């Protein structure tokens, strides 16, 4: 089986190394495969997101040294943490729009290629303002998340898209934990070569920055946007048609589900970002640990992403098989609420390192699983504006991170432990919004699907009659067909039964009419 060239466009009978559906998206997800074009896109997208996380949270890993070098106060540290996540808010929305227009390959390549200089330049900051600005620009790299999820959604079928998105995002998020493990080691290694501590931390940033540059080169050289080729070639051959930008925006912003997911993602991923920012310092200051041990223990939280976020995506796909979208929504609400509960409990265990670590591990599992579950739902909100919806939801994560960091760990006069407690309470409150999500063709948490409404009705409603007449909606037709799997086999079996009964009834009627 061969692979189509990057700039070639699909023939009628394409050949792919992996089994594909009508959209040429892979129908299986095997992370240990490297078959082009699906798997290099998967692997390089999660690696790029991983690199972005390593760079964004590398300063947090070395804060005990940095804060003394450039004389930072608690307020400066809080503002820098907020800047790191705020940088990505607008960037993620912009990235959503960008990938819809220019494709995910350029999106990721430009994002990490153009933020690498900011990672190098943090080595030159000498005051709080410079540090905050550096973290702001480095934070833009978190926009790779949107392109990463968009790319996986473009490459993988609806039955495995939850798992693919969650694996990519989970392994990418692991960077936030890995950096707490890596950076103190790199710092120590440089210090051992007779470099003073206040220079060693600066040289240490050359490592994540160089990794970003290397990935930029690999992404531009070895990958393509879609299974059928790159955006530029597809548009030229009219295989992809350009639709109205306002129509794309309208489909995203007028869909209330976009905003529900945006808010709620802020309280799973946003909470994760905040914990990544405050945990190493909390461990260092509260339990009087040295930099290595504090970093190692804090790294556990982020490293749990190795399996916890992917397990969220897997759970989402698993429950969807039986209960469809309703199963995804219930799993989402239950797991994110448990994440909030364990965040609350984390605030109550500040006196014991052992109890803190036990609660932290469980908290990280539920928090990160809910992030994985979120992107098992997001691809189904809109087909026309997939990138933009991913962008809004992704930026919602950063807004949540900025809000929780500001409220509970910077400006309110409460301890870090109390911050965890109240953050958990707020999480459980906001999570109730999932109960309002409703898809007319699949149902919601409490309401069943509307009779007679199909997936085609929902997805084609995003296009005007004029756009449909031009055939711009063809991708949505294919997607609607593939997304019937979200009915769940319970409902699908009931539908099949009623269809068979209707068919049998029609046959009987025709036999009767013949006899008459």
């Amino acid at each position, binding site marked *: 089986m061969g692979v189509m060239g990057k700039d070639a466009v699909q023939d009628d009978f394409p050949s792919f190394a992996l089994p594909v559906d009508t959209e040429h998206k892979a129908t299986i997800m095997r992370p240990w495969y490297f078959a082009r074009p699906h798997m290099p896109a998967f692997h390089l997208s999660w690696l790029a997101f991983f690199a972005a996380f390593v760079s964004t949270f590398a300063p947090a890993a070395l804060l005990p040294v940095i804060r003394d070098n450039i*004389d930072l106060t608690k307020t400066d540290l809080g503002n820098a943490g907020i800047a790191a996540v705020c940088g990505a808010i607008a960037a993620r929305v912009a990235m959503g729009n960008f990938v819809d227009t220019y494709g995910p390959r350029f999106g990721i390549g*430009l994002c990490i290629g*153009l933020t690498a*200089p900011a990672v190098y330049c943090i080595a030159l900051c000498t005051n709080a303002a410079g540090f905050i600005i550096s973290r702001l620009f480095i934070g833009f790299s978190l926009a790779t998340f949107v392109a990463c999820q968009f790319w996986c959604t473009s490459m993988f079928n609806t039955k495995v898209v939850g798992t693919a998105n969650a694996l990519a995002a989970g392994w990418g998020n692991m960077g936030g934990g890995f950096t707490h493990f890596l950076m103190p080691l790199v710092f120590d290694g440089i210090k051992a070569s007779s470099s*003073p501590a206040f*220079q060693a931390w600066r040289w240490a940033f050359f490592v994540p*920055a160089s990794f970003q540059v290397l990935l930029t080169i690999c992404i531009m050289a070895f990958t393509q946007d879609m299974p059928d080729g790159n955006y530029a070639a597809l548009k030229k051959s009219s295989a992809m048609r350009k639709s109205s930008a306002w129509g794309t925006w309208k489909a995203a912003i007028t869909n209330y589900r976009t905003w529900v997911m945006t808010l709620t993602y802020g309280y799973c991923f946003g909470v994760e970002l905040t914990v990544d920012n405050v945990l190493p*310092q909390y461990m260092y200051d509260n339990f009087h640990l040295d930099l290595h*041990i504090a970093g190692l223990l804090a790294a556990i939280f982020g490293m749990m992403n190795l399996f916890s976020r992917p397990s969220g995506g897997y759970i989402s796909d698993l429950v969807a098989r039986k209960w469809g979208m309703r199963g995804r929504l219930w799993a989402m609400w239950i797991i994110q609420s448990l994440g909030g509960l364990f965040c609350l409990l984390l605030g109550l265990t500040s006196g014991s390192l052992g109890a803190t670590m036990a609660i932290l591990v469980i908290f990280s599992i539920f928090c990160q699983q809910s992030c994985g579950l979120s992107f098992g739902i997001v691809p189904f909100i809109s087909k026309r504006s997939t990138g933009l919806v991913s962008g809004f939801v992704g930026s919602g994560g950063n807004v949540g991170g900025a809000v929780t960091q500001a409220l509970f760990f910077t400006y309110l006069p409460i301890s870090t432990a109390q911050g965890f407690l109240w953050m958990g309470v707020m999480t459980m409150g906001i999570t109730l919004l999932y109960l309002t999500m409703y898809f007319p063709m699949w149902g919601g948490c409490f309401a069943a699907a509307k009779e007679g409404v199909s997936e085609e009705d929902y997805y084609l409603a995003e296009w005007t009659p004029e756009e449909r007449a031009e055939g711009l909606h063809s991708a949505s037709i294919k997607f609607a067909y593939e997304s019937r799997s979200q009915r769940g086999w319970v409902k699908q079996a009931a539908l099949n039964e009623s269809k068979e009964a209707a068919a049998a009834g029609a046959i009987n009627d025709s036999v009767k009419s013949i006899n008459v």
Partner: protein
Amino acid sequence: MARCLSLAVALVALVGYAAATGNIEDQQPTSYTQLAPVKGQWDITLKATKTADKAAFEPVDCAEPKISAACNKPLLTADAKDKLQVTAALKGKTLKTIDDLTPKRVVIKACYSKPSATDRPWRKSNDVIDKDKSCPFVIKSTELNVSSTSYSIDWPIPKNMTKAAWYATVLVLCENGTLNSYCQFDNTVNKTYFGTNIINSTPTSMIIATAVCASIGPLFLASYFIKDFMGRKKQ
């Protein structure tokens, strides 16, 4: 399943290791308040040498210093060349300790002044001496010599010292049964402070390396897009 189990075992081991290597005290907790009755027995003087000026100076006595205040000048640079001479001399012939414990050790520390610890909880002082985070640098730690009433040291300012205003504290350790505990202290609060400034942490080599490396990513992207554009134009 087996992988999850082994990960869980590794995590438990890590937590146990962390608990074991956390701060284990072989000292009995004592507070500054407890030691107040025996304070005031040391004369602590601070002198400093700046290598550039090759001249000694004596920091001016003052109270509640700010970093920019006159009493902290000139600032000593944390380059292991500028030095601070600390002399702690007993006012009387013998040292009186709390509960008449036997003094064993004298420890002289550099402590952050109040303005340098403001809005920095990691430098917060605590009445319990072992929990006090405001004295991170040990200037001298020596066995107490019964025949000596004065302890002096020329302390090079270490390279990891921050920009701050400092005072000196003398702590005396005594044996208390099988444990050690602090049994006397004195400091130069509201008397004498010295100021430090950080080393140059961005040498020229770092600036050049940053400029070169930071340009690689954007240059690659620019050349890629130019090549791609030219290629499409030819088609």
